[in-house]
């Protein structure tokens, strides 16, 4: 891939150095072309280049862009060649827009609200959504800063303030529900967390720290008390401390997406049955049947979100579009 891009770039540069690209106009920073067939030739070359470029964007990690561009001194070409009306920047912006569309602040808010409700009603702790929460907190911070600048008589100040309060309520309620679950199932949660890999941790770093400290404090507390107990009772078995969530508890659920088959274990008759969950249908069934879907749905969202989050908060940090692409 690198090689092909490089060859294309090289050929382009050679064209330029041979002065075949056209006459440079310092005013518009654009080249004017003399003959149309030459133009088509270059156009096809460029299109190829652009396609390769876009492909490489897809394939490479975004962080690597900078490296890619340092390998190929595009800036050198950038200053002198502006060709036709194809602008890679536009193409890239389009790409970004597609991602960003998924993640307007509104969408983030909806995701947090959904995460809040899911967390509230699922018996076990779900994968954390810290990315969304932090994004919202940033939004709130920004909004509060803007509000301070506005005059108090502006009718929209009140509405904004009210909305911020509403969002804060959702966030705090969400985090508190999680903390409550961590406190109840502390030992269990920590054990499960230890088996998970770095990428799919269910607890955020802060929550993990809280859980560890909580477990430690609880242990210390039991130790101090049990020391004063008769010998027979002063040992606490691990199995006695542990509280486990009842994964088979019944939950009400609403299906956002069609799911072909959900297996439900009927403990009464010792059988399994399979049902189809249709879009927007509502059901009552044991949590264990749908647990995977509840978690996975979020997992997919996290991935989309990760890409977009960078774009929302720091559009030019990883990749300075202005400097580089003016091919």
């Amino acid at each position, binding site marked *: 891939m690198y090689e092909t891009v490089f060859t294309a770039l090289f050929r382009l540069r050679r064209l330029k150095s041979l002065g075949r690209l056209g006459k440079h106009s310092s005013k518009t920073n654009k080249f004017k072309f003399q003959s149309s067939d030459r133009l088509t030739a270059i156009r096809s070359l460029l299109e190829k280049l652009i396609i390769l470029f876009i492909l490489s964007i897809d394939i490479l990690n975004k962080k690597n862009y900078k490296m890619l561009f340092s390998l190929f001194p595009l800036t050198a070409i950038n200053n002198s060649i502006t060709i036709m009306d194809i602008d890679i920047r536009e193409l890239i912006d389009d790409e970004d827009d597609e991602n960003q569309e998924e993640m307007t*602040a*509104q969408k983030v*808010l909806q995701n947090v609200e959904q995460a809040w409700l899911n967390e*509230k*009603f699922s018996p076990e702790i779900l994968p954390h959504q810290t990315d969304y929460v932090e994004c*919202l907190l940033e*939004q709130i911070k920004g*909004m509060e800063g803007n509000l301070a600048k506005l005059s108090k008589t502006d*009718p*929209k100040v*009140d*509405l*904004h303030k*009210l*909305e911020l309060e*509403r*969002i804060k*309520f959702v966030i705090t*309620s969400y985090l508190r529900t999680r903390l409550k679950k961590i406190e109840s199932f502390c030992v269990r949660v920590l054990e499960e967390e230890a088996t998970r890999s770095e990428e799919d941790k269910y607890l955020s770093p802060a929550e993990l720290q809280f859980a560890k400290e909580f477990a430690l404090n609880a242990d210390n507390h039991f130790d101090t008390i049990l020391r004063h107990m008769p010998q027979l009772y002063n040992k606490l078995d691990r199995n006695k401390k542990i509280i486990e969530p*009842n994964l*088979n*508890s*019944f*939950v*009400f659920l609403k299906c956002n997406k069609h799911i072909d088959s959900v297996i*439900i*274990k*009927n*403990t*009464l*008759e*010792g*059988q399994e*049955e399979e*049902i189809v969950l249709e879009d927007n*249908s*509502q*059901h*009552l*069934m*044991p949590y264990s049947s749908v647990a995977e879907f509840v978690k996975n749905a979020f997992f997919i969202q996290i991935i989309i979100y990760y890409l977009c989050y960078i774009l929302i908060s720091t559009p030019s940090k990883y990749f300075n579009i202005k400097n580089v692409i003016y091919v």
Partner: protein
Amino acid sequence: MMHPAEIEFLAENEIIQIVPTFNHASHVHLICGSYGPFRAGLPLNVPIWVALNLRQKKTCRILAPDWMTVDKLQERLEEEKASKFFTQLPTNYYLEITQMLLTVASEDIPQGNDIKTAVKDLWDLRIAKLRSSVDLFVKEGRVQASLNHLTPMEINSVRPVFPDTLDALMTLHEHINSSDDREDSSQSSGATPSSTSFSLSL
């Protein structure tokens, strides 16, 4: 599990029409979306919480939603009576919206009291249906039910008790089954319903 006030909180995100009495040319860019422009006398869509806030400051008039008329509600009631299952309602939060609007903006809604009664009738009817379905569900020992068109508030009215009952039943059955297996694995319970899925509504 969930406080009714929290369901009301969710209901406040629904969109409603208001007629502002003030002018504000630009859009208000809230995080949940942009609304506006506010022009005196011209109706526009906003979330209910915005509508209530403006109404409390007496800077707008709330327009009752389409379904919130005595005639429409009576129609719904008849439909609900005729159907064996739960019917689809125009909004998921009919009770909460009625309650909120009538508390804050009772002057804006014609025949407020009649509407209140009609909504209460509808609620009573649906809850009665729900209770009898729940009863049947527990007695027949099913493990799955589809509950289409039930609103969050209705579900919440049976929430803590109903799933907990089922959980307890399941635990008991598990214990019975495991002891049965130990005693006699060949002996199976005779009368088992052929289909285990159960429909509260279709």
